[in-house]
């Protein structure tokens, strides 16, 4: 028996919007071009443009008497970078960035692993909020809050005293190089605050990488005789490595470029960001500031090359 089916007649009148949609559907390249032109313009003009201006400025110099920028190519700024005082700043900053990155991996990995493998639904949402909550408040507020927490009369030393651990705090502060008058006036304090600030940027990429590992891979590893620590070393870590690399690029470059934290918390030794800020703001020596700000770019470039060689992106 035949069932009579009727269709509504196809629409005959098309609006302008419909014609545009049809045209874009037939020419996907045009659509792609329309979507990509604005961000590419933005990226090309503002980002690459300013980067090249920076690069060009690094090869100029300042007239020592008039304080005006002389547009003649010279390597003087780079020679100045090699002076012991400036090398010291660069080395201190890179060391700090490396240590902050290592500590963030150490603290962030277990959190990321827990979030990725042991939570779901509401618990996972809660974890996301907990990790990102600090980012909802102003960076400056948090840095100054840490200054109070770490001060000699602050909460941390009070807590240490209550726990009868004042001696431990004093011993830490008595350490050469990293110690100081109080936590808020020591490189140790700078380190603690940096780790606090950038930890979310380490946790989230690692969490995403671990979440992408199918659980059957972990079961297969166990099935083939690997105890959990061997599965971690042979399967989880290599597959989470792109996340660690991404997170470490963030924590590393954020630390390299920061000039607020070492200014508020720490002894008065300078970091790269502070020198750049002083040179271009106070001293008005934009060429030297430009040359100095190339240091983090070169260091991060070298770091990227290094992690690529380590195979961090093979699993992508």
């Amino acid at each position: 028996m035949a069932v009579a089916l009727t269709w509504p007649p196809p629409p005959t009148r098309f609006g302008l919007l419909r014609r545009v949609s049809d045209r874009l559907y037939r020419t996907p390249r045009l659509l792609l071009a329309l979507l990509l032109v604005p961000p590419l313009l933005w990226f090309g003009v503002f980002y690459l443009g300013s980067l090249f201006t920076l690069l060009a400025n690094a090869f100029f110099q300042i007239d020592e008497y008039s304080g005006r920028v002389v547009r003649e190519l010279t390597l003087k700024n780079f020679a100045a970078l090699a002076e012991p005082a400036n090398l010291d700043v660069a080395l201190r900053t890179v060391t700090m960035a490396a240590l902050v990155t290592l500590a963030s991996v150490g603290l962030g990995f277990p959190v990321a692993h827990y979030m990725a493998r042991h939570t779901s639904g509401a618990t996972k949402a809660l974890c996301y909020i907990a990790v990102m909550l600090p980012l909802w408040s102003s960076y400056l507020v948090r840095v100054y809050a840490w200054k109070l927490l770490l001060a000699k009369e602050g909460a941390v030393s009070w807590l240490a005293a209550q726990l009868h651990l004042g001696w431990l705090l004093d011993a830490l502060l008595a350490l050469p190089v990293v110690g100081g008058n109080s936590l808020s006036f020591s490189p140790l304090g700078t380190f603690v605050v940096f780790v606090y600030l950038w930890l979310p940027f380490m946790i989230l990429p690692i969490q995403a990488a671990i979440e992408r590992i199918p659980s059957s891979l972990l079961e297969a590893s166990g099935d083939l005789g690997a105890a959990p620590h061997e599965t971690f070393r042979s399967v989880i870590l290599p597959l989470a490595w792109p996340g660690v690399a991404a997170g470490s690029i963030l924590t590393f470059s954020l630390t390299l470029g920061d000039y607020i934290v070492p200014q508020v918390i720490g002894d008065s030794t300078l970091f790269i960001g502070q020198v750049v800020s002083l040179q271009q703001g106070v001293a008005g020596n934009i060429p030297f500031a430009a040359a100095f700000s190339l240091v983090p770019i070169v260091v991060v470039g070298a770091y990227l090359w290094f992690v690529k060689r380590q195979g961090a992106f093979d699993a992508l």
Partner: protein
Amino acid sequence: MTAAVALERVSCEFGSGPNRVRAVDAIDLALEPGEFFTLLGPSGSGKTTCLRMIGGFTLPAAGRILIGGVDMTMQPPYARPVNTVFQDYALFPHMTVRENVAYALMVRGTGKAERERRADALLDMVRLPGLGERRPAQLSGGQRQRVALARALINQPQVLLLDEPLGALDLKLREQMQGELKALQKSLGITFLFITHDQHEALSMSDRIGVIDRGRLEQVGTPRAIYDTPATRFVARFVGAANLLDGEPARRLTGHAAALLRPERIGLANGHDARATGTVTDVQYYGAFLRVTVDVGGARISADLAAAGALPEPGAQVALRWDAGAVHPLAADAR
């Protein structure tokens, strides 16, 4: 003889409170050494949970699991002498094919030269010679399946667990792999526990089949016993096509309270040997045969007829015949 694997009153539950589901319900099962045993059931029947409990990935709520006579109920996967071929193959994407196959040896600390020699030998055995340097992503589905097989066999397990390993392959490749798997199992002599929802696969490959539904084993037996003499209605319906007759039509046509009649055992009667007459309601073409549905006094009976010669059309009156031995009585009150 010690069973290769024995499940004793094994149960498994998921969830908690009102959402609790009993995935496996007090199953008893013993696999003989060297047999090809298939757990056959629909999705959600608990067959994969059984395999996962034997592999150690899921722990049972009750019961005991013995592997080679040793109680392994609560042992972790890495302590069990069984290996698994996973449904999605679970190959390590960051390792080469050779490293994947040699993984179990690497974990045990076998030297690199020995590892590579044995991995290459296994790759030869699964007919993938020379592909050791590739990454899993560079292989086809069938090739990945073979790598997963080689990887699971390198430790020479007592029992190989296969979780719907052929499910992702297309029909031709699946049939080819069925033959190869069976031949491999024969030549290695190890016990295979094969999980599938495909009755054809189960019937053609297995020494014995266990049919599972809603966490319970409905029947265990040879493929022939499962097909010809199903213990329950579920087995009769799930394995092969079935005419299930009940009540008055069953008594009238077969003399039993309930009975199974396979469509391929029914033919067209030529006059004197008719057991039933009725009206053709539907004809489906399957290539090798036609499935003709006949309304016999209110009961619908399907008959598979060779697709040759004059064939009935819908509406035609036909007479059907079958041998007395084609009728398999079922319990009237069976599930």
